[in-house]
């Protein structure tokens, strides 16, 4: 078994927190994991990506080859499309519907979302609305991991456990919000 995930978004959105949630669950399940991250200049509001590779065998390359990813999980729709060429033919793109407009030439959001929906396997998640309903806009990352949990090669209990591990030390309320965010993301995936 191998499962390759490209995680993406804009610097500061929390791409690495998504990776950490999934990575923790992978460890619980005894999978090998390699996670390649972007640090430095790009983190200042630029396009950011991380590669997370899961396998029950030895993982060689730290980077996922183009055309090999099983999942592109994105916090931002334009960023989602940027990594489409990483997907393998059966791979799925899961993106937040919410545009982060910090460049003057940002394209028409509806056109971008339509392009995502036209892919063979994709799903657009109303991440900000779901996070807000769960109680905190900051929980969009957890919503997106919840959505991805339908596809990830691990029990959703392991992912929930990971949410517990990550947020329980931040207090009862934060944990509660994130568990709700995870559940609503999971429900929203179609």
């Amino acid at each position: 078994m191998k499962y390759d995930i490209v995680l993406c978004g804009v610097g500061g959105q929390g791409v690495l927190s998504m990776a950490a949630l999934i990575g923790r669950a992978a460890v619980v399940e005894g999978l090998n994991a390699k996670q390649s991250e972007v640090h430095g200049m790009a983190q200042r509001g630029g396009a950011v990506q991380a590669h997370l590779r899961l396998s029950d065998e030895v993982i060689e390359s730290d980077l996922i080859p183009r055309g090999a990813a099983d999942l592109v999980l994105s916090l931002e729709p334009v960023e989602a499309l940027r990594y489409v060429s990483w997907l393998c033919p059966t791979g799925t793109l899961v993106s937040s519907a919410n545009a982060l407009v910090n460049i003057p030439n940002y394209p028409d959001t509806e056109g971008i979302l339509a392009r995502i929906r036209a892919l063979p396997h994709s799903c657009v998640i109303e991440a900000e609305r779901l996070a807000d309903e769960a109680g905190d806009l900051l929980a969009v990352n957890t919503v997106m991991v919840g959505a991805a949990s339908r596809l990830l090669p691990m029990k959703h209990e392991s992912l929930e456990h990971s949410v517990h591990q990550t947020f329980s030390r931040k207090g009862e309320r934060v944990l509660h919000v994130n568990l709700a965010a995870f559940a609503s993301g999971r429900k929203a995936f179609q």
Partner: protein
Amino acid sequence: MPQRILLGDEAVALGAVHAGISTAYAYPGTPSTEILEYLLDHHERQGGPHAAWCANEKTAYEEALGTCFAGRRSIVCMKHVGLNVAADPFVNSALVSMHGGLVVAVADDPGMHSSQNEQDSRWYADFARVPCLEPATQQEAYDMTREAYDVSERFGVPVMLRLVTRLSHSRTNVIVGEPRGENELHKAPKADTWVLLPGNARRQWSSLVARQKDILAWSEASRWNLLNLRPGRRLGVITTGIARNYYRENARAMKDEPSHLHIGTYPIPEAQVRALAAHCDEILVLEDGYPYVERMMRGLLPQKLRIMGRMSGELPPTGELSPEIVRAALGLPALPVLDLDGMLLPNRPPQLCQGCPHGHSYSSLKEALEGMNATMVTADIGCYTLGALPPYSSIESCVCMGASIGMAKGAAEAGFENVVAVIGDGTFLHSGTASLADAAAADTPMTVLILDNQATAMTGVQDPLIASSRLQAIVLGLGVKPEHFIIVDAHPRKVHETAEVLKREILHRGLSVVIAVRECKQATRKHARIPEAVAS
């Protein structure tokens, strides 16, 4: 055995701790920063070894060298271009007889993700005639760092550990071993081996050159070099460092596995290269960085063996390797990919955070320069380099740490009238003070604008070594005239006021220094422990 999930950088840090280092020094620089970040955190939690950020890579190197002079082990960490700054102590420390181990961890940045060039540090190790280890995995990063200390003490030389971005910033499981204790404090057995007066230096240099054959023998026998000769195959592949990962990722798809030599230690294990060459008609060299092994193999004279790599076009001449590039070089068809039928996506370059004080300073500078002739704005390295991009488009140069002030002086003396040098507080301390002394001595007509955001922000917001209040004493102490030294607040409401100050000082026909003070937004957040906000 205990396992940890570690970044490549963190594996180096923990390897050094477990090798019994007493001290660690560094100047932050992507992709090496996380080595010392880890060691600082380790120090805070476990009380040792000593770890500290330094003013620049040269001071960091010399401080590490002092620990080795005292017989103990030390690590010094930097990015590739940082080694240019530390080149003087690095090259010369190869001549002393090192009795406490010194590891120089240098993180190269092929592809220039966060750097102004992609120089390959293996040439530096070669130039200084010291051994170099190049890990391919996080596990090797840990194991090699430990081993590097033994190599350093065995041959009495500093040892380089060469990393690249993709290893530094990738995390996975690492199995860790039993920690070793620190060395006893002790002076060098022979004092004159550390005094590089010409007479001693000649002796030490001869000794270093004489030790090369032993160092080569160590490299030839190292377990990090793996030669796998396959029967009946004419193609051979040489990989170094992480290129092996890309090779193995693709090799499974090949019908016949080629003969393969992996190089993890330098000097290049020559006998193994020759053994591979004798076995093959053609050799593909895969290395992330410059074509170092490839160029050595080509030499100057014609040869029967066909060598393929960056110099002959099978691989791109510049940039970092990737699984796809290696795949193509191995003659495998590309994997099918989805495309967007020509749909173009806008780039999203990095930008200053919303409310960044540098943005306000650039607004002031723009206003001040409006309508002036013969203007020139040199700048330096930090978040403020983003001022080269719209909407600011305010700066015209970024070359190396500290270059802004010296370049402004040269441009002013060449005849440009209204010259401004923009430099951050961290970069000023790193390597701006000496050129400011030059400018003060000549009272060159130019204005130095120090952007004091009280942090080394670009590399993840490290605290400044020197508080803003002391910057003033340094500038005045270098001989800048008090009447042309002004401190302003980089507040959004003071943009116009600051523009007036800058205009007046730029028009002054002598040296002026203006410090624009306001804390970096991310530093404020860090100190208040609020999560990082989205840039916009």
